């Protein structure tokens, strides 16, 4: 009987394990293969060595996405905090209001801001000015913040709303003012929400190519654009090498951040 059960359970996960090996691990191995070979399929380090010329693009992508993530946190944390302290029936409405832009396709959202900010767009028409916004770094950062803000707010909101209400009372009884309650008690307790918010904003904004295509106006290139261009033009090897490096960097940073949040939770339990 017992034996039969364990066999059946081994079978339950088998399709998934098979699927994961074939369609998750194997494609990544192929990316690695392309990164370390040349056009003819011979082993070479040329692609990896040629990455030096893409360092400025890497740095620019990192710069814009870190700024965008920081702005998201700056705008999103107070928003999540206010939402979590609102009446329960209002909270539901606020969450829905955040979900709707999130479920609207990224292309539509990005295009709609481009149409507003464009040289002959709505903003300039209404104001009667001729500001040049699309094509600047600011426009790309704005696009990232606009597109990914809900991803920052929702995890923080979930985290803050789960914090025991007595924490507030206890902290203020012990002499904290409102600002201290937030910085010394609430913010540290919501750290896991902040970290998942930061990853959910940082990863898509560092790898985006649509936002920079539309709002960058073709004046500069981010790493996502570079990868896309390599693959569209058939330069699979260089494209593979860039993707590989980006993947490794992102997985390492996610790993580090997760370690931090795990330690935090452990601290709370202790």
């Amino acid at each position, binding site marked *: 009987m017992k034996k039969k059960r364990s066999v*059946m*359970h081994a079978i*339950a*996960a*088998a*399709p*998934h*394990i098979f*699927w*994961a090996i074939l*369609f*998750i*691990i194997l*494609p*990544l191995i*192929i*990316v690695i293969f392309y990164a370390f070979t040349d056009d003819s399929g011979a082993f070479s380090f040329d692609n990896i060595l040629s990455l030096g010329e893409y360092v400025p693009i890497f740095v620019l992508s990192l710069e814009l996405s870190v700024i965008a993530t920081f702005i998201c946190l700056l*705008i999103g944390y*107070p*928003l999540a905090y*206010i*939402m979590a302290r609102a009446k329960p029936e209002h909270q*539901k409405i*606020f969450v*829905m*209001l*955040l*979900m*709707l*832009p999130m*479920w*609207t*396709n990224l*292309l*539509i*959202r990005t*295009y*709609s*801001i481009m*149409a*507003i900010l*464009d040289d002959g*767009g709505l903003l*300039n*028409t209404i104001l009667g000015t001729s500001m040049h916004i699309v094509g600047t770094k600011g426009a790309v950062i704005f696009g990232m913040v*606009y597109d990914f*803000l809900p991803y920052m707010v929702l995890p923080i909101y979930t985290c803050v709303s789960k914090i025991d209400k007595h924490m507030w009372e206890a902290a203020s009884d012990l002499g904290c003012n409102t600002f201290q309650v937030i910085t010394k008690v609430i913010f540290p307790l919501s750290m896991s929400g902040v970290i998942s918010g930061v990853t959910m904003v940082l*990863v*898509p904004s560092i*790898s985006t190519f*649509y936002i920079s295509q*539309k709002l960058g106006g073709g004046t500069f290139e981010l790493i*996502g654009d570079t*990868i896309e261009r390599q*693959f569209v033009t058939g330069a699979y090897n260089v494209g*593979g090498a860039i*993707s590989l490096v*980006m993947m490794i960097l*992102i*997985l390492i940073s996610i790993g580090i951040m997760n370690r931090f949040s795990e330690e935090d939770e452990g601290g709370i339990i202790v």
Partner: protein
Amino acid sequence: MKKYASRIYLCLVFAILYIPILTLILFSFNKTESTANFVGFSFQWYIKLFSDQNAFLALRNTLILAVSSSLLSTVIGTAAAEGIYRMKSKWIKKAVSSVTNIPMMNPDIVTGVSFMLFFAAVVAILRIEDYDSIGFFAMLIAHTTFCLPYVILSVLPRINELGESLTEAALDLGCTPVQAFFKVKLPNIMPGVISGLVMAFTLSLDDFVISYFVSPSNFQTLPLLIYSMTKKTVKPDMYALSTIIIITVFTLLIISNIKSSKKTNTGKKKNGGRK
């Protein structure tokens, strides 16, 4: 004072979030091609859209793909969650769930690129003449793969929560393990399975980046159609299409919210009655 400040802040952020979407909806009714000057009200862009064969084809493709990939990922993912729950070795458990989470952690562009290279290799190795002939299956595999972690993530906590006692009771009462799973366990973890299914469905509907790298020339989805529409100078027919999508999403969200709040209300009432 503080209350007002926080209200103003909320309104301001939501206004910024919604102004672009609302202007897009407004200009889909514009009389002229302009997306900056509203001249007058007309339905012409909707009429143009409905006479466009491509839009219908893309809608049909998107739905076929979303339904089939969400069903497939739900079946594989639910079985996998049960299997992962049973795994005795912590090490294997950890290895399987880390590999499963790769598509969720990885930037979409890397997942897309890896699939593109993978299917290029498949085409070369199997000597398939035309990528289009396996195009749909390539899309199905890609979508199922990136949906799987989300399904497992929503089913596994339910299984952990449910524990072992009910299954053991069913086995003692003479169920075979398979019967015990389908008759006892599955109905109990159903909410998790359903939310995984819905999640997978919406993710598949919404995906652009991965589809962009995998899609064959004969299988266009709605996000890909929108992308190709925004490559040229956009005419408001793309606005009309977006408006229809936004309104559909909005309606679905409201319906699901009302349903869930009704459920919790009746649940409360029932509990109250029992007291």
